[in-house]
C-alpha cells in the first residue's frame, strides 16, 4: 500500500425505488423484490407512459417543499449520511437532471417568469446541500451521465488526499424526468417488462431515480468507520457517443486503474457490483471487460439494477452504499430480474442473496460519452488509526489552528503549454487586440470563428456548445505541440448543451410526448461535449465535466490539477457556454438583460511545472458561507505579490451584500481591483476567457483593461470569481 492517507467512509445515506433509507435498502437486498411500475410523478400523455420505471417513495421534507424532485431526493439521502455527525466542509455531487423535471412542466405550459426556473441549474442541488450543512469549502457538481456519482467519489477522494478538505459529502442524485424517460425510450433502451440484467432475453433498462451519498474523511475521530474507499479509476471509451466499446476497452481501463490506485491484485476483489443496465450492448461489453480483468478467477458478481432500476447519475452512489453493505455484512446481492442467463456472456452472477465473507468489493459505473468510473471499497480496519493522516504527521492538527479551513495551497502551479479563447471578436489574438483598442469583446461568438475546427462529417449532428468546445480543444491541442492526446480532459459548463435540450423538449411537447430526437437527447447531457472532445482527440483519459454556475471553470481546473498532482502528464481544461434564445433568458435573466448577450469560453493545455518558460496557472480555492471571507483572509498573505486582482462579478450579483468583497476592499487599494465583465461580456464561463487574457497579460507585462493598460511588473495576477460562492486562481509568468 502507498503511504498516502486512507479515505474512510464514516456515513452513508440512500433513497431509491423500494428503499427510503439504508436500513430499508439492507432489507431489500436480503429480500429482493423489484418495485417497477408506470410513473406517477410524470404526466402520462401517451401509451409509452405505461412503461415501468423505478420511482422512489419520496417522503416530503419540510425544508425541501417547493424544490424540484432531484433536490428533495438529494437532501433526504444527504441528511441520512451526515446524520448527527460532524458537518462536511466540501461536497462533490453527481447529477444530470438538476431541476429539469420542474423546468419541463413550466416550459410546457408556457411560463415565462424566470422565478419558475431558479432551480434549473445542476449547481442548485449542491448549493441547497451546502446551505443545509453550512459548507465552507469546495461545492463541486460532476455531470458525466450515468457515471456521475462514481466520478464524484473519485474527485472527493482526490480532494481529501490533496489536503483540500477534511470531510467530504459525496455521491449523486437524479430524479425521473420526461427528458430522460422519453430520451432512453427513443433510443430503444427501455425494457417494456422491466430490467433483466445478463438475461438472454434482456431488452433494456428500467429508468429509475434516487440519491446515494457517503461521508468521506482522512482523519476520522468522531464516528465509526464503515469502510475504506481504497481506490478509484476513470477512463473514457472515446469510441461512440452512447454505445460502449464492444470489447469493453474503456471499462477494462477503469477497473485496472482503480485496482492500481487501491494497490490491489484482481484476486483481492471478492464481489463486483456491475454497471449491468440490462441493455444488450452494455452487458455484453461489461462481461468481456470482466473476463479481461479477472480472467479465470471471476469474483462473485451481480447487477442490482434489476432491483433498484437505473438511477442514472445517482446509480454510482446507491451502488456504493450497496457495496459497503455487502462488505459490512458479508452479503452478496442477487442479480435480481435474471431468469435465463445469457450463456454467451461467459460470466455467472449471484442468483440469490448469499452470505460470504468479503474484504474488498468493486463497483462499476459507465455512462454516455463512454465515461467510465470504477470504485473499490475495503473492509474497515478493526480499529482505524486515530492519529492524524500521514500528510499532517509531525504537525499540529491543522483543524485546531485554521478553524476547519483546509490549507488549500497544496496544489502545484501548472505550466500552460497553450491557451485559447472564443469571444464575439474571434480567437485569442482578435480578442486581445480588440481589448488593447478599448473595444468590448461582448456578444455571441461568430460561426466562422469555430466552424472549421473539426471535419464536417464529425460535427454534422452537433449544435453550438459542442462545436465551440471542439474548436477550443483542437486549438490548444495543436498549439501545445503535444502529439499525444491529453491525459485528463476536464470540462466546465454551467448550462450544458441548451440548444439540444430545447429542441428535444419542443419536439416532445409538440407531439404530445410521442416523438422527439434521439440525437438531441444524446446531445443534451452536460458531458456530451467532453465526450466529443475525447472522440476527436482519441483520448481514453479520465474525462470529467463540472457544472457549477460561475464556478464551472474553476472546478474543471481543480479536477485537471488533481489529476496532474496524482501523476497525469497533461490536462486539457475547457470551459464554455452557448447562448440559446429561448432558454438562456429564462435561466439567467440578469445576464440576458445585459445590452449584448454573450457566449464563448476558453481552453488550456496544462502540463506539470517542468521549469520550462511560460505562464503558470494555479487553483487556489473555493469558499462559501463564511468560508468565502476565510478564503480572502487566507489569500491576504499572497495578494501583495500580485500586480492586480481581476474580479468577475456576475450580472445580478449584489456586491454591496458580499462580505468577501467587503473584506477584499479592506485589504487592497481600489486601483488594484480590476473588473473585466464590462469588457469581456457576461456569461457563466467568461472567467475562463478572463484567465486566457490574464495568461497573455502576464506574458506581455500589461493588462489591457479596464481603462488604461496596467503594467504588471511582477507578472502575477489573482483572479476571483464572485457569485453564490467565491473561487480563486492565479496566473503568473
Amino acid at each position, binding site marked *: 500500500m502507498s503511504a498516502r492517507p486512507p479515505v474512510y467512509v464514516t456515513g452513508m445515506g440512500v433513497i431509491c425505488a423500494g428503499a427510503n433509507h439504508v436500513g430499508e435498502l439492507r432489507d431489500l437486498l436480503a429480500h429482493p423484490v423489484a418495485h417497477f411500475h408506470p410513473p406517477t410523478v410524470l404526466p402520462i400523455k401517451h401509451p409509452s407512459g405505461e412503461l415501468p420505471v423505478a420511482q422512489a417513495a419520496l417522503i416530503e421534507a419540510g425544508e425541501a417543499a417547493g424544490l424540484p424532485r432531484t433536490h428533495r431526493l438529494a437532501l433526504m439521502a444527504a441528511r441520512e449520511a451526515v446524520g448527527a455527525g460532524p458537518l462536511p466542509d466540501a461536497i462533490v455531487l453527481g447529477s444530470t437532471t438538476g431541476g429539469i423535471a420542474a423546468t419541463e412542466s413550466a416550459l410546457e405550459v408556457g411560463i415565462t417568469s424566470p422565478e419558475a426556473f431558479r432551480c434549473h441549474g445542476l449547481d442548485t442541488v449542491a448549493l441547497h446541500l451546502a446551505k443545509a450543512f453550512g459548507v465552507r469549502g469546495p461545492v463541486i457538481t460532476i455531470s458525466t451521465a450515468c457515471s456521475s456519482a462514481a466520478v464524484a467519489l473519485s474527485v472527493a477522494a482526490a480532494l481529501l488526499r490533496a489536503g483540500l478538505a477534511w470531510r467530504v459529502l459525496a455521491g449523486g442524485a437524479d430524479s425521473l424526468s420526461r427528458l430522460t424517460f422519453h430520451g432512453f425510450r427513443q433510443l430503444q433502451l427501455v425494457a417494456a417488462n422491466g430490467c433483466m440484467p445478463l438475461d438472454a432475453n434482456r431488452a433494456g433498462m428500467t429508468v429509475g431515480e434516487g440519491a446515494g451519498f457517503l461521508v468521506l474523511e482522512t482523519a476520522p475521530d468522531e464516528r465509526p468507520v464503515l469502510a475504506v474507499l481504497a481506490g478509484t479509476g476513470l477512463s473514457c471509451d472515446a469510441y461512440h457517443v452512447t454505445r460502449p466499446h464492444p470489447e469493453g476497452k474503456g471499462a477494462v481501463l477503469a477497473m485496472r486503474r482503480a485496482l492500481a490506485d487501491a494497490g490491489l491484485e484482481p484476486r483481492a476483489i471478492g464481489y463486483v457490483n456491475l454497471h449491468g443496465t440490462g441493455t444488450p450492448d452494455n452487458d455484453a461489453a461489461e462481461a468481456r471487460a470482466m473476463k479481461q480483468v479477472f480472467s479465470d478467477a471471476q469474483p462473485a458478481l451481480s447487477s442490482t439494477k434489476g432491483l433498484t432500476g437505473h438511477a442514472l447519475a445517482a446509480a454510482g452512489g446507491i451502488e456504493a452504499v450497496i457495496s459497503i453493505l455487502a462488505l459490512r455484512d458479508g452479503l452478496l446481492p442477487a442479480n435480481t430480474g435474471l431468469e435465463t442467463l445469457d450463456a454467451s456472456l461467459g460470466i455467472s452472477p449471484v442468483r440469490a442473496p448469499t452470505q460470504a465473507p468479503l474484504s474488498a468489493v468493486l463497483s462499476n459505473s459507465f455512462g454516455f460519452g463512454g465515461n467510465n468510473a470504477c470504485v473499490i471499497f475495503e473492509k474497515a480496519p478493526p480499529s482505524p488509526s486515530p492519529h492524524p493522516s500521514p500528510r499532517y504527521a509531525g504537525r499540529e492538527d491543522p483543524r485546531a489552528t485554521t478553524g476547519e479551513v483546509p490549507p488549500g495551497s497544496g496544489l502545484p502551479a501548472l505550466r500552460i503549454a497553450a491557451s485559447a479563447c472564443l469571444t464575439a471578436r474571434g480567437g485569442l489574438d482578435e480578442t486581445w487586440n480588440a481589448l488593447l483598442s478599448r473595444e468590448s469583446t461582448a456578444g455571441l461568438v461568430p460561426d466562422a470563428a469555430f466552424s472549421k475546427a473539426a471535419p464536417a462529417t464529425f460535427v454534422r*449532428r452537433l449544435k453550438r456548445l459542442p462545436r465551440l468546445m471542439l474548436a477550443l480543444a483542437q486549438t490548444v491541442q495543436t498549439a501545445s505541440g503535444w502529439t499525444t492526446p491529453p491525459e485528463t480532459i476536464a470540462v466546465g459548463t454551467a448550462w450544458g448543451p441548451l440548444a439540444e435540450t430545447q429542441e428535444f423538449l419542443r419536439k416532445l411537447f409538440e407531439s404530445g410526448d410521442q416523438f422527439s430526437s434521439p440525437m438531441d437527447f444524446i446531445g443534451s447531457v452536460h458531458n456530451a461535449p467532453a465526450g466529443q472532445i475525447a472522440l476527436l482527440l482519441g483520448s481514453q483519459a479520465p474525462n470529467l465535466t463540472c457544472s457549477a454556475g460561475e464556478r464551472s471553470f474553476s472546478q474543471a481546473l481543480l479536477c485537471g490539477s488533481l489529476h496532474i498532482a496524482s501523476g497525469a502528464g497533461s490536462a486539457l481544461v475547457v470551459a464554455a457556454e452557448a447562448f440559446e434564445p429561448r432558454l438562456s433568458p429564462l435561466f439567467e435573466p440578469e445576464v440576458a438583460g445585459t445590452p449584448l448577450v454573450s457566449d464563448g469560453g476558453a481552453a488550456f493545455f496544462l502540463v506539470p511545472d517542468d521549469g520550462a518558460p511560460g505562464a503558470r496557472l494555479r487553483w487556489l480555492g473555493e469558499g462559501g458561507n463564511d468560508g468565502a471571507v476565510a478564503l480572502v483572509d487566507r489569500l491576504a498573505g499572497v495578494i501583495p505579490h500580485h500586480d492586480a486582482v481581476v474580479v468577475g462579478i456576475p450580472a445580478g450579483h449584489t456586491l454591496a451584500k458580499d462580505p468577501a468583497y467587503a473584506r477584499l476592499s479592506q485589504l487592497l487599494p481600489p486601483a488594484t481591483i480590476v473588473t473585466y465583465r464590462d469588457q469581456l461580456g457576461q456569461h457563466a464561463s467568461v472567467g475562463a476567457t478572463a484567465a486566457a487574457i490574464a495568461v497573455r497579460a502576464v506574458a506581455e507585462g500589461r493588462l489591457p483593461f479596464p481603462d488604461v493598460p496596467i503594467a504588471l511588473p511582477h507578472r502575477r495576477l489573482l483572479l476571483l470569481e464572485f457569485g453564490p460562492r467565491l473561487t480563486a486562481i492565479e496566473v503568473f509568468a
Partner: protein
Amino acid sequence: MTAQTDPLVPELARKLVDTLGLDLVPETVDPAAPLFGAGLGIDSIDLLELVVLIEKDYGVKIDNRAAGVEAFASLNALAAFIRQRRPASPV
C-alpha cells in the same frame, strides 16, 4: 420494385439528408445502396433518428432488429417497407 422510381424514394432521400445533416445532395444518394455501414457514414444513432422520423411522418414502427435490417437495406427497401405497413396509405 418497378423500374419506375417510387416517389417516396426522393422524398425519403431529402428527409434523410436534412434530418441527419449529411453533406450530400439528396439526388445523389443511390436508392439501391445500403443505408448503414456504407459510404453515407450513417451510424446506429442516425438509424434511431430515422426510426422516429418514419413513425412520426408515416405511422410505421420499426421496433425490432429484424425490421430495422429489412427497412434500412436501402432507400428502395425503406420506401417498400413503409408502403407495405402504412396505415390507410394513399397509394
